[in-house]
């Protein structure tokens, strides 16, 4: 009996040894802290990609082992975590954490070691380091890529004047400056330009001042809490009948809880986004259906339009490059990513020399027909009508703003 168990044990060990070692992919992801909610949704998408690939037999015939640590949205933790991933866990490939701040400290590390790094919705993080093996998944590149669609739509609607309302913080100011430059180039006259302190909760005075300035378009660059307060303020006070377009760079109106809580107050606003239903990317609808089921179990963002598809796309890009080069060599993979167009569920992606998208694709969509307290409505095309970019457009902007709001 003992001999039989010994032989059986040996047989199992031999079978285990015959199994090729897994391909280890590692990353840190904010699962707590300020980016925690988005991070968890993004992580679910990446886990879905890992499961999909493993179900197909893995990468290069080896299954994927996915190693993830929580960086708590703390940039002081990421250098240590990535060193552990590389030196202790011995991962083959790494993916950057979601967001600019946790990513920035690992840029010198990957440059120094000559590693491929797949970026994850960060902004201009490679600007100083200039690493040639960096590939970001975000559809924006520089500051102007966030606002050119909005300015274009405004011009088309016959706008001659513009008002700016921006949070007085570096990131918001960078984006607002991009919009200011584009507006100047487009010949739009600035009739109101106000920066507000980050802790502002009452926007009524500013909305009244905008109303008095009678601009044709209003570009707002705000953070999630401010965005909600601004939408509530315009709902109560109104911005006047001169305004054709309102919105632009309002962060937070892409997040499911805000969309549901603001409901019909969103109608008429034209705002940036990464993806909205109606964009015909191959495979995205299937992904979102599968994501919705798993999001329910994982208790993360139930819609998952903003971040998860772009995280799944990171995996797809790695998969495509590895299968094409039949290698895990970082330099070979980076060369492939530089030279070829990647096919993903967020559309085709071609990278520029700086590792950002060669053709940024920030979507500008107008909220229409949104009713209160209904999350499911946002799954269907038509609640956010795509106005920009031209190739994905499904409608024209309804102007003026008050008409679009149905008032």
């Amino acid at each position, binding site marked *: 009996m003992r001999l039989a168990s010994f032989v059986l044990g040996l047989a199992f060990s031999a079978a285990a040894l015959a199994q090729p070692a897994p391909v280890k992919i590692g990353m840190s992801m904010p699962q707590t802290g300020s980016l925690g909610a988005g991070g968890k949704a993004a992580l679910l998408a990446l886990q879905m990609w890992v499961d999909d690939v493993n179900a197909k037999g893995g990468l290069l015939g080896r299954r994927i082992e996915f190693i993830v640590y929580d960086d708590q949205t703390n940039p*002081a933790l990421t250098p240590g975590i990535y060193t552990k991933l590389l030196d202790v866990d011995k991962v083959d490939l790494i993916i950057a954490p979601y967001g600019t*701040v946790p990513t*920035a400290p690992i840029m010198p590390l990957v440059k120094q070691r000559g590693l491929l790094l797949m970026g994850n919705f960060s902004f201009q993080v490679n600007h100083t380091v200039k690493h040639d093996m960096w590939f970001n998944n975000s559809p924006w590149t520089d500051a102007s890529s966030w606002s050119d669609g909005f300015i274009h739509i405004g011009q088309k609607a016959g706008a001659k004047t513009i008002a700016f309302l921006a949070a007085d913080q570096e990131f918001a100011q960078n984006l607002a400056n991009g919009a200011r430059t584009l507006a100047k180039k487009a010949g739009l006259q600035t009739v109101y330009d106000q920066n507000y302190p980050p802790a502002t909760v009452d926007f009524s005075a500013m909305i009244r001042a905008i109303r008095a300035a009678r601009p044709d378009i209003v570009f707002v660059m705000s953070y999630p809490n401010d965005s909600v307060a601004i939408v509530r303020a315009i709902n109560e006070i109104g911005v006047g009948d001169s305004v054709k377009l309102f919105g632009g760079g309002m962060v937070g109106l892409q997040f499911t809880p805000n969309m549901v809580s603001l409901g019909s107050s969103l109608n008429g606003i034209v705002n940036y986004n990464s993806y909205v239903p109606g964009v015909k990317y191959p495979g995205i609808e299937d992904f979102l259906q599968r994501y919705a089921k798993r999001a329910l179990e994982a208790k993360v963002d139930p819609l998952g339009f903003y971040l998860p598809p772009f995280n799944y796309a990171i995996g797809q890009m790695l998969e495509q490059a590895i299968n094409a080069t039949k290698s895990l060599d970082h330099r070979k993979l980076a060369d492939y990513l530089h030279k070829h167009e990647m096919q993903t569920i967020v559309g085709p992606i071609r990278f520029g020399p700086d590792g950002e998208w060669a053709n940024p694709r920030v979507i500008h969509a107008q909220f229409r027909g949104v009713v209160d307290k209904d999350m499911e409505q946002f799954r269907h095309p038509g609640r956010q009508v795509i106005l920009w970019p031209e190739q994905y457009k499904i409608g024209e902007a309804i102007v003026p703003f008050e008409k679009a709001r149905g008032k």
Partner: protein
Amino acid sequence: MKFWIGVAATVALAAGLALSGTNEYFFYAGYVVLQFVVLATAWNILGGYAGYVNFGTAAFFGIGAYTAVVLFKAVGAPLGVQILAAACASGLLGFGTGLLTLRLRGIFFSIATVAVIFIMHTAIVNWRYVGGATGVQLLRPPAMPLFDSYTRMLFVVMAVLAVAGVCIARYIEVSWIGRGLRAIRDSEEAAECSGVPTLKLKLFACTVSGALMGAAGAPLPMYMSFLEPASSFDLNYSVSALAMPMIGGTSHWLGPVIGAILLGSVQQIVTVTISNEINVLVVGVLLVVFVVAAPDGVLGLLRKLKWLHRSSR
């Protein structure tokens, strides 16, 4: 004598490890633990010896880090100069804060120190030269020839700072300054009546404590190759710097060292093992357990065990 042998052995061990082939991850994690040794020791000078609970550690730490950034950006100052300047800047901040707040006591003093964090954070957010709210990326200069990497060098630098901080704290503890601070902690009125220069001593403690916290913050920009205000002025630094001496024991210089090594190591281990929201819970539970089971910290617990052992004989 034993103390000085320990000091020499600690520095030699740190240097030996940095020059050995030890895994790079050890130095990233070790740096953080040593950084907390400095912060906890610095906190204990005012909070432990004088009994003034300072919640503003993050402000002094952050100002130290930003002083280093300014000097590096403006003139490419070497790390040693950055640390000295950071200690001076944070020491001055400590002196100023002390002048304005040390007439307050108890919870009122603590609240005033929290305000310092918000003031400094707001100032940095609005200062574009140091990157404002977005932060600033920095490219590390080459490490000294002896070291394989900059992180190994930073580990040794932080070990030297930790040892220096402990030496300063021990000197304060055993000198007349420490006796004066303890008198203030027990009864400020009685100390004043006995001729203890209470305000001068508190100001001194506040300045030295601030300077050490600033020195601990100075290498941070090079450690991260990046600095931004939200994480530099994070209240977690204040909470950890307070919790570590509480866990180790506040009455002796060794208490903060034990607390920092214990809690700092647990934080590092939990980050790469449990690694989800349970992180915060583990550290919280550990704190509660220590506060309930060992109100005088590990040192107090050891003393009690020693006493029990003696009395049973």
